[in-house]
């Protein structure tokens, strides 16, 4: 956990220094890229039967990456952000009670999901903090948008978690 916290604060500092929308998106894009690469690298390491989870995670990060990238190059980015901020995704706090574990060498499906959940949670909270501390206007909107995006992603993961873990058992 400590390892992650460190990462959090580091990126937090990094983002805090950025002052324009584009710059922030640049950093966000790079974060997504890191995440994607992390999951992609993990694919061959896990057993084949649970590989799909990691593959899907990588796929989702890739989608985020693509989204941020296209946003960055979108001339009407501001209006898009405004649109998105109007309907924030609620944080249901399920992940708060999921313990973050060490991934280890041979993680099982639950561990991977828990790790991914914690990661999204952390990212979301970080953008939330940044948004709270940023001055009103473009910057705050951008952070808020990013927080929402991460929250959304986390929610999807939670659903997946329930469907995979909370299932099974005889009648």
């Amino acid at each position, binding site marked *: 956990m400590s390892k992650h916290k460190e990462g959090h604060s580091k990126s937090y500092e990094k983002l805090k220094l950025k002052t324009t929308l584009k710059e922030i998106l640049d950093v966000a894009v790079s974060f997504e890229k890191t995440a994607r690469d992390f999951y992609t690298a993990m694919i061959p390491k896990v057993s084949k*039967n*649970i590989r799909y989870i990691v593959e899907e995670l990588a796929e989702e990060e890739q989608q985020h990456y693509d989204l941020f990238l296209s946003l960055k190059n979108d001339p009407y980015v501001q209006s898009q952000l405004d649109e998105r901020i109007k309907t924030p995704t*609620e944080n*249901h706090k399920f992940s708060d009670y999921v313990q973050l574990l060490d991934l280890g060498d041979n993680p099982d*499906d639950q561990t991977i999901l828990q790790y991914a959940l914690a990661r999204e949670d952390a990212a979301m909270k970080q953008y939330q903090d940044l948004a709270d501390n940023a001055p009103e206007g473009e910057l705050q909107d951008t952070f808020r948008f990013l927080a929402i995006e991460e929250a959304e992603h986390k929610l999807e993961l939670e659903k997946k978690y329930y469907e995979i873990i909370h299932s099974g058992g*005889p009648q």
Partner: protein
Amino acid sequence: MKKINYNDKGSILNPLKNLQFYARKPVTEPLGPRPASASYRGFHINDLDKCIGCSSCQKICDNAAITMVEVPSIEEDASKGLRNLRPAIDYGRCCWCALCVDICPTSAIEMTREYVHVCDGDETDSYFIFPKETGIHGDSFEKGWTKTEDSDLLDRARRPMGEMEPEARIDNFDEIVDGFTMEMAIEEASRCVDCGLCEDACPAHMHAPNYIRSIYEGNLEQAVEWMYETNPFSHVCGRVCTHICETACSLGHGEGESDPIAIRWLKRFAMDNVSKTKIKQIARKGKSRKKSGKSIAVVGAGPAGLTAAFDLVKKGHKVTVYESLPKAGGMTRYGIPNYRLPKDRLDQDIEVIQSVGVDIKYNVKVGTDISMAQLQKDNHAVVMAIGMQMGRSTRIPGSDNKMVVKAVDLLRMIPKGDEFNVPKSAVVIGGGNVAMDIARSLARLQKQKYNEVNITVSALEQLGKTFLADDDEVIESKEEGIVILDARGPKQCVIENNKLTGLETVKVISIFDEQGRFAPKYDEENLQFHEADMVVEAIGQMSDVSILGDELTEELEWNRGRIQIDGNGATSVEWLWSAGDMVKGPDVINAVADGHRVADDIDKFLNK
């Protein structure tokens, strides 16, 4: 009454009496149809939404006037008992007796007060109508003959099933339900309208209408014969089946109080009242005399594996079943407590299967005692049916304590007779039937040992809305003194000095989103602490696929964590099939259905 004077020849003036009729009102009705009476049996209408396509109207129709037509735009769902068949009525046959109205289980088909239909000689097509909300000519008429309580031809009430009182059952593992008596069974069986919705809904497509009919006729052996055609686990299914059939039952679709037929209890009744030797004879029926010379290995002696083995043996193949535990039955033995499924009944099912010629090797763990590669070498085909025997953990803080255990492990220990410390108080996490099973089992042990029950079940899901366990289970658990705390998420297991003291939970505001997917909302203010010596996790299970070995795991195609299979259970590896919980999810009847499918496919493959 005026007497007639027969001798009165009358007067010549008698015809003048007729003059009085000029003053009377004429009886002639104006031209055009008069409105018919309030219960007139006129042309039909059918509420297409209420109609479930059960074809009861077709069966009761004495004139063979009703054709069932398929309407593709209507949703079809076998598991809910909905067919997209709707009645079309041939007015060249109909006699307007309204029996179809009176039998309709959902009161969909009714009659209006419309009665005039005239057509030219070449327009007889208009005699074949598809009744909808509006009648034959698309006009709305007032309803005429509709079903009333008196005219209803169906018996809506289920025969009550006797149960042990909570006080009597709480300190032992005796079976709770009494079962039907012959009289009750016949009465219950007589309610069946033979629509076949149950058969469609059943994963194994058990011939429920046929065996219900046989029970009604008092021919229990015939009933058992029908059962064994599709299910060698009829004792088990007669007790613990998820009975999708009863959800589908057309009688259960009725308005108001209308119970589905107790198909499961009827099955139980028939099985219990036919002798074991007779059942063995029945089970052997249709066994191939010829030996095929092919051998098949089945991994796991659960319902899926044994069903496949049973079928394959009957087809003349040699089958060996490998079981890692000392007894067969899989989850039905090591997952379902005695009070729901007495083990002698399970033993009987297995004995019957063995009597057909299935060879079971106990205490052999594939992967350690014998490798998959070895099985492949020795056999023409291998069936993997290992089930889901590993419990999932919540992995909340403190869940690594040794007094935090998984329900499946505990459930397995009880029938095995393994000793463990019965906790004075326990919390069960989970809201499914497994959670109820372990809670009720522990309650019994507590009662035996401490003479009091102290069990709390804490579940994310909300009672009466999203709760997973069957209603009966919840009701019975409560009767037995188990506290069910719904809508609570586990926060942490509280550990003090390395000793478990209890579980902390947090309130769940809502659990599913609009699409019915999991999206829990927690209220962090609302915390609660449950004191407990033991926390049992009953949230989910998984399959121990590690026994396949890395190589095979790599070779196989997977589908979201489960071995990818085709419609018949064949995996991507030519010699390997997979069946049961490990590929289909947890359910005896699904496992049995899977077993049949796999056996059929293997047989086809071997005879190629």
